[in-house]
């Protein structure tokens, strides 16, 4: 049997922090995280829908409820999750049909996803606030 040389102890550095991912990887992990958030918030969204559609008084309650700064912040977070999941999802549909799979384009479309999701969140957030 050949004697294998003893491996030199090399530093192992698996940095899985999302911020060290390339842009398409960041879009990917945020797609998962935003999807989880959207799932978790479904019940809350239905609660809001029910309140707003119950009656005139319910609608007023709904308006008062979403005027609360903390609720607004949560809604803004949910809006971001929706917009990120939406725009990243559109990107994936194109990738599925082999559009934009080369690296430079994939990078560009990742940046486009961030521009659209964060941009629209800020614009709609400013309007809603």
């Amino acid at each position, binding site marked *: 049997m050949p004697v294998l040389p003893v491996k030199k102890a090399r530093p192992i550095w698996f940095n899985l922090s999302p911020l060290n991912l390339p842009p398409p990887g960041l879009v990917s992990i945020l797609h998962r995280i935003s*999807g*989880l958030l959207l*799932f978790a918030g*479904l019940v809350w969204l239905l609660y809001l*829908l*029910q309140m707003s*559609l119950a009656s005139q008084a319910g609608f007023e309650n709904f308006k008062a409820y979403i005027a609360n700064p903390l609720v607004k912040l949560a809604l803004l977070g949910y809006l971001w999750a929706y917009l990120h999941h*939406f725009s990243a999802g559109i990107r994936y549909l194109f990738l599925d049909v082999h559009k934009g799979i080369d690296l430079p384009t994939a990078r560009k479309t990742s940046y486009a996803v961030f521009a659209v999701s964060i941009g629209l969140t800020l614009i709609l957030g400013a309007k809603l606030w």
Partner: protein
Amino acid sequence: MVNRVIVGAHYGTRDWLAQRITAVVMAAYTLLFVALLLVTPKFDFAAWKALFSQGWMRLATFLFVVSVLLHAWVGMRDIWMDYVKPTGLRLSLQVLTILWLVALGGWAMQIIWRL
């Protein structure tokens, strides 16, 4: 030699496809919803209720809700499969996810259809 072709149940492909189709339905509904809000002159209770009282809007919302349930199921199942290794726990979470989603779907339909 046994010439056996192992092809599996194909549920992976089916779910993959369901994920895409439901995504397109939800995207279309989102654009429709935003467009309807934009053409609503004044956002008040009457307008909000009228929006969901129309038959076609109820039908569109129904399709949207069903799409959300299927889409969320595939996505959540992926997450449980990736991060939860003990089979019993994973199976429990998957079953709870299905029950939870079906319950939410029922509730959503109740909200829309009793208007």
